[in-house]
């Protein structure tokens, strides 16, 4: 019979670090999916996930057990991803000339009639990635959590450790910044 999270955690805290391995096996698919929202290169994703589990192991004594282990681990995951974004902040301002032909065509088609064809989706995602590169770590984090993962303000506050008003302010600024980048791109394209 499989041991529960609490049993495994108790064993790790007693000094049996090998008991941490089943926890990694249990939660690594979810952690990989989270990390893939923030990093595109696979080697970066693997480094982030490794960092998440190392931090979780080192801070395991701070897990109080009043919430499921998965929630606590996701907090560690989100904060590690935020550290990654801050460390790899590109803040590169994309211009229209940076857009590929497919991304440019997507803007044309979307201006006409937005459709959900698969090729359109791929071009839209690539275009979004370029816009996200122009955002700060805070802005990128909040857009990912609020608009892509569709989490509530309260959930985001818990995950990031930011206050509720700060989450709202950052969300407002992030949306404004996204629009600003997009506007510059389209102005360059159509003027």
């Amino acid at each position, binding site marked *: 019979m499989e041991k529960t999270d609490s049993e495994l955690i108790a064993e790790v805290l007693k000094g049996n670090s090998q008991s*941490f391995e089943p926890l990694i096996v249990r939660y690594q698919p979810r952690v990989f*999916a989270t990390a893939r929202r923030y990093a595109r290169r696979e080697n970066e994703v*693997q480094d982030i996930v*490794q960092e998440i589990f190392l931090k979780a192991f080192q801070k395991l004594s701070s897990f109080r057990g009043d919430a499921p282990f998965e929630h606590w681990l996701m907090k560690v995951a989100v904060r590690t991803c935020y550290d990654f974004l801050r460390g790899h902040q590109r803040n590169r301002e994309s211009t229209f000339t940076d857009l590929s032909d497919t991304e440019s065509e997507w803007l044309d088609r979307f201006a006409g009639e937005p459709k959900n064809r698969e090729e359109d989706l791929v071009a839209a*995602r690539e275009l979004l990635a370029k816009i996200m590169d122009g955002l700060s770590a805070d802005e990128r984090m909040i857009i990912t959590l609020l608009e892509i993962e569709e989490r509530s303000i309260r959930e985001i506050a818990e995950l990031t450790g930011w206050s509720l008003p700060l989450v709202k302010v950052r969300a407002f600024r992030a949306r404004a910044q996204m629009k600003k980048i997009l*506007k510059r791109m389209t102005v360059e394209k159509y003027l």
Partner: protein
Amino acid sequence: MDIEKVRIGLLKAERSRVPSQDVPYAFEKRVMAHIASCPALESITDYMSVLWKAAGSCACVMVLAFVVSFGFQSDDSLGNRDLESTVFASMSQHIEDSW
């Protein structure tokens, strides 16, 4: 072009992508190998926490000494005189002897 509509369209496209949950082969072994090399790191962390606690205690003692020294400032002149006479006692004795 409605920028907000475009923005929502882009986000909708990204939302429809479900990130892969694929895990590289034996990834947990890689993490466990790093954890095995952690004790050294842990001992450094413990040492640092002890240092921080010691620094905190020193700061408390410093503040306490500061408060005490200024709190009893009225008696300080008397204390200073006592200290001065004690320190200079041998010197004045020596001078008296030499004369």
